[in-house]
């Protein structure tokens, strides 16, 4: 994984590193559907993340997670309680 010399604030991983996002997507697709939230909730969560200054290059600096993965899991919460 290479890092660009510029940073992208409030960007999802798919916007900054397509190759790494591809491998993350494969992992997300392998997760049991029962553990995941539906598309509407997923989009709501990611929309909130994209309004947050903690999101840099697809990663939440509050928890160190790529939000596209963190946001898909039912059990997960935003570390700063912006979505539950």
């Amino acid at each position, binding site marked *: *994984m290479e*890092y660009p010399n510029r940073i992208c604030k409030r960007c999802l991983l798919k916007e900054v590193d397509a190759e790494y996002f591809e491998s*993350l997507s494969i*992992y997300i697709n392998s997760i049991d559907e029962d553990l995941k939230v539906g598309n509407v909730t997923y989009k709501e969560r990611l929309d909130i993340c994209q309004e947050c200054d903690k999101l840099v290059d697809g*990663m939440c600096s*509050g928890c*160190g997670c790529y939000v596209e993965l963190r946001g898909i899991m039912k059990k997960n919460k*935003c*570390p700063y309680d912006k979505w539950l």
Partner: protein
Amino acid sequence: MKKLFINENNKQGQIKAEIYGQFAEHLGRCIYEGIYVGEDSEIPNINGMRKDVVDALKELQVPVLRWPGGCFADEYHWRDGIGPKETRKKMINTTWGGKVEDNSFGTHEFFELCEQLGCKTYVNANLGSGTVQEMNEWVEYMTSDAESPVVEERRKNGRQEPWKVDYLGIGNESWGCGGHMPPAHYAGEYRRYNTFVKNYSFDRPIKRIASGPNGDDYNWTEVVMDTILNDKGFAPEYDWYQEMLQTGLSGLALHYYTYPDGHVQKGLATEFDKAGWYRTMTKAAFIDELIEKHGTIMDRHDPNKKVGLMVDEWGTWFASEPGTNPFFLYQQNTMRDALVAGLSLNIFNKHCDRVHMTNIAQMVNVLQAMILTEGKKMVLTPTYHVFKMYKNHQDAALLESYVDGIEVIGAEDDFKVADIFESASIAEDGTITATINNISITESADMEILFAELKPEHVKATILTNKMDAHNTFDNPEVVKVEEFTDFTVTDRGVKFTLPACSVITFEVR
């Protein structure tokens, strides 16, 4: 019945408090989010330092903190981290995951943190990509009280009095990320840089630490010790000069991590089997052999053991938690980590004549951490609890001790390890502390502590025990916790008890 003999009449040296030292690098969420959140954060803080984390760390009596790296140290330029925060240089931490480093945690903030923790300071300076002048001026900035432009700059930035730098690392992993130097080349560089690291106060000289070996690289130790200590070159007054200026070598840094499945394909912290457990313990216990063998080399050059073997990076290194930035080195922490910490600290105690400091990697959110944070939440790890259970050893006198009845156990022929590790010490107030680990994940052990003469009058004990992969989470933070241990019998010579499988016990005896 296993017997733990403790001779309270034979003190074998002082267990320096620094053996229980910590390490915080600009890596992942160790400094930022884990310790420092800034003055304007919604997370309660004092001068930007998270109050919950600092309060928890104070319970450990952190004796010393190493900063700013690690590999980051040899890319760190101290001037980026001083002055008004809004004007500090923003950069990308290319070593560790491409995170934006805004330098809001710099020199002043490090000393603020150490003041809050009440600990000694260990600054690792940049030899790899810095200059002699840069290191010289940083030391002047931190420790001088003279009238000079650099000191005036510090005062202008809000700090009137000099700070105390207890330890200064002159380069880090110079065999690797710190410059990929051969040992003789590094040793020469060390001598050059060290010449210009001045002591501005002779009643508190800076203890200098050279970059030491990577694991079992014994040639590094031989060449670096010989070149720094013995090679006088054309300056026969070298020893006298160093003695007068108090600039001699105080420590050689050894780095050793426990990778149970190798450096490349690491398994997860929480997912392992019985064989993985014993591989981990066997590899962790290898530190004993490393200390013995590096110590033997050091003995030839430094028979009076003035130079400490500083194990300033150690601990478990597993795969990063799924979904987190792999370069942030964020890993969970289970009873496996607790036993690695327990046996390692017992080994360090027993080598306290040569091991003068260790710094577990790292303090918060990185590798074998004391504390994990997620936003406002904080969780104490099993490793944290072990450090707390061992804190009586700090600055106590090591006592002669050994176990009769040790068995060698394991699931694979190549990875066998002793089932029991222990050490014992006596504090100034006469309290004897014995810390004992049962490495077996299936077998408890009947044990009797036997003292030479002491007839115990007051005995209390605490225990940390659980399943091998038990760990604390933000939703369930007290799965692994310290509990009082009362299931023992006091005899006229000691204490009898059964040591549960997979456990760490601390006895305090008077």
